[in-house]
């Protein structure tokens, strides 16, 4: 009876497992294999083993250099702003009049699909008719070429990312703040702690694990940024807003059809994300926090 039950259970789960292997494991293994080959879909020939040539090419590719530069810029600028802003908002709206409404409204950007957000921002940043330039003109600022200037296009991508993902950080930290026992806050107040001291000595230590996890999740997402760039600047002007993910897309699917090289780039990105997240987990001693 028990054997039968187990057999039926296995049969029931088997289609999903097969699907998972077919759609996840197999493509991943294929990608690893392809990264060691010369395999270009526009060349109409079978993949040819070339060893590490694709990986060596990465270090000689100017496109990689510019995409890495922009990706680092995103991490260094967008991520801290999102963390600080999300945390600040989470703290600020506590006990605010209309807190629930404000909370729901703040989540809206996160719920908008990235493609829709890209189209929307492209309209907002329109040089001639966009509301952003119109609002700036009220302060005497000349029209800015948001999508046609190196500096402004990068700023535009950063603004879009902050707009869309600060709510995510807000949501997590807000939920975290709700779980802090009020007794601790009351006790601190009784001891004469001011708001800043309560934040620094009570709330932040208790939110440490959530902050760490949020930081790691956002870091991974920023390293994979693609959709807003695709919908707005398409990596331009020049190579100004090529993120690493966007460059992989260009190589693999857009102009290159170089599946082999694109696979190598993808694996490098995966390795970088894995290494960075492990470094962060170690630095933040996340396993200790989670064990506690």
């Amino acid at each position, binding site marked *: 009876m028990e054997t039968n039950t187990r057999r039926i259970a296995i049969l029931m789960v088997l289609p999903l497992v097969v699907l998972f292997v077919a759609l996840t494991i197999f493509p991943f293994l294929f990608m690893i294999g392809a990264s060691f080959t010369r395999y270009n879909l526009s060349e109409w020939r079978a993949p040819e083993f070339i060893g590490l040539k694709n990986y060596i090419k990465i270090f000689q590719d100017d496109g990689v250099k510019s995409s890495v530069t922009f990706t680092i810029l995103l991490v260094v600028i967008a991520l801290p702003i999102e963390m600080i802003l999300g945390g600040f908002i989470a703290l600020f709206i506590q006990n605010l009049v209309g807190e629930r409404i404000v909370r729901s409204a703040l989540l809206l950007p996160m719920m908008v699909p990235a493609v829709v957000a890209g189209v929307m921002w492209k309209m907002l940043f*329109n040089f001639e008719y966009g509301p952003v330039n119109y609002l700036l003109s009220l302060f005497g600022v000349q029209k800015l070429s948001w999508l046609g*200037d190196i500096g402004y296009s990068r700023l535009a991508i950063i603004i879009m990312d902050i707009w869309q993902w600060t709510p995510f950080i807000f949501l997590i930290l807000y939920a975290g703040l709700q779980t802090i026992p009020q007794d601790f806050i009351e006790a601190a107040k009784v001891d004469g702690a001011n708001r800043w001291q309560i934040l620094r000595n009570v709330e932040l230590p208790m939110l440490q694990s959530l902050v760490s996890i949020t930081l790691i999740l956002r870091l991974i997402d920023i390293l994979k940024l693609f959709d807003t760039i695709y919908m707005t600047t*398409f*990596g331009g*002007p020049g190579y100004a807003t090529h993120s690493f993910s966007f460059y992989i897309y*260009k190589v693999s699917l857009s102009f290159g059809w170089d599946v082999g090289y694109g696979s190598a780039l993808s694996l490098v990105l995966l390795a970088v994300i894995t290494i960075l997240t492990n470094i962060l987990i170690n630095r933040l001693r996340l396993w200790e926090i989670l064990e506690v």
Partner: protein
Amino acid sequence: MKKLLCSVVILSIIFSVGLLPTVGSAQQVTLNVWASPDNADALSDISQRFMQKYPNIKVQLTPISWEVLYPRLLADIASGTGAFDVATWDVMTAGAMSKGFLDLESFKKQNPDLVDPNWDPKDFDPTIWHIAGMWGDKNIGIPFYCNTMLFYYRKDLFNDVKLKTKFKAMTGKTLTVPKTWEDAIDVAKFFTKKYNPDSPTDYGIALMFPRTHTLFYMYLLFFAPYRRSAEGMKKFGALDLDYGDYFTGDKKPAFNSPEGVKALEIMKALMPYSPDPLGSDYGETLEYFARGSVAMVPQWTGVWATFKTSEALQPIDKKVGVAVMPSGRSVSGNWALGINASSKNKKEAFLFIQFATNKENDKTKFIKFGVAPSRLSTVKDPEVRKADPRVDAFLKTIQTQSHRPRIPQEPKLEDVTVGFFSEILLGKRPNTVEELNKLADEWMKILQE
């Protein structure tokens, strides 16, 4: 054991029900047609009439954006899955697509009973037939949308007496529709408010130089006049239709030359008189002109439908004029209809593309949807000429237009070029022959790979 048997029976029933429609409709053929948005409306209309004529053939049309269509087509023909039967392919993808599309000439010889005797293959311009139909000696498509760029301008402003007087006073020249790009610089400046506060428009010209394939073809508007001049033909050699105007006659880059530098100089000179050229693409420039913000715009033929309904451009016959491109060289942007070599419905697919490209439908799609005609008979038809004032300019343009490369390496060449040109226009790279030589070296690396 009983539970296992039940599971198997249930799964079998599910599979059987799923297969029923296929088994029951063995006589009905469904054609999967993938089309770019430019062609989708016209093809949809044609499909309705086709299905009335051939009730056993159902046409399932899927519009796919330009950026996604090419990779999807390439993925399907490379893998041979036959997910589509018919597709529209863009002219510069001919080389890459060639192996995956059916040779229509061979197919016709094998299936003479399917050939329409009234179809008239001689009714196509030979150059258009080559670039949108042939690769080597293989006929991989039939020209469907003979797109080209025309020069649209505000007729009312160019005819305005006060503006003519003012222009004469400012420049010493007569205000006319620019015949050269050098003329266009003066006119564009005149119609830009920043340089002429009395200008009726904010900007003189709407240009699109974004970091996409758009910049690749826009460059040819400025370079091709040099490439195809008498001096240019002597220097660069005869044009090879597969390699196009970016190349010399012996298949080397031609743009790394003083002429290539001059083309970029003119583009840079026009930029101050255009709203955000590096950040604007098709949609933006269309809007600038449709809203009356600019006096001139080089654009594709498909914009006419938008201009016809734009409030700021009414009445359109008084406000919008159409001319050949300044300096006389436009750029081709043809779409062809082809059959997937892996299609399981080749006969039905052939009937469809033959129907879609016959004389009647070529005329109908132009009048109804503004899809530029592929057939000479359409362009010469009095009814068509009456319906659309652009026909004369269109006919002159397709006979003199420049062409992008159609070779398989085109997408790579395009990407590295637009990145480079974009940086030159931004001022990040110098505009010199030496700098363009670096791009040419990249091209040679790609071609030799």
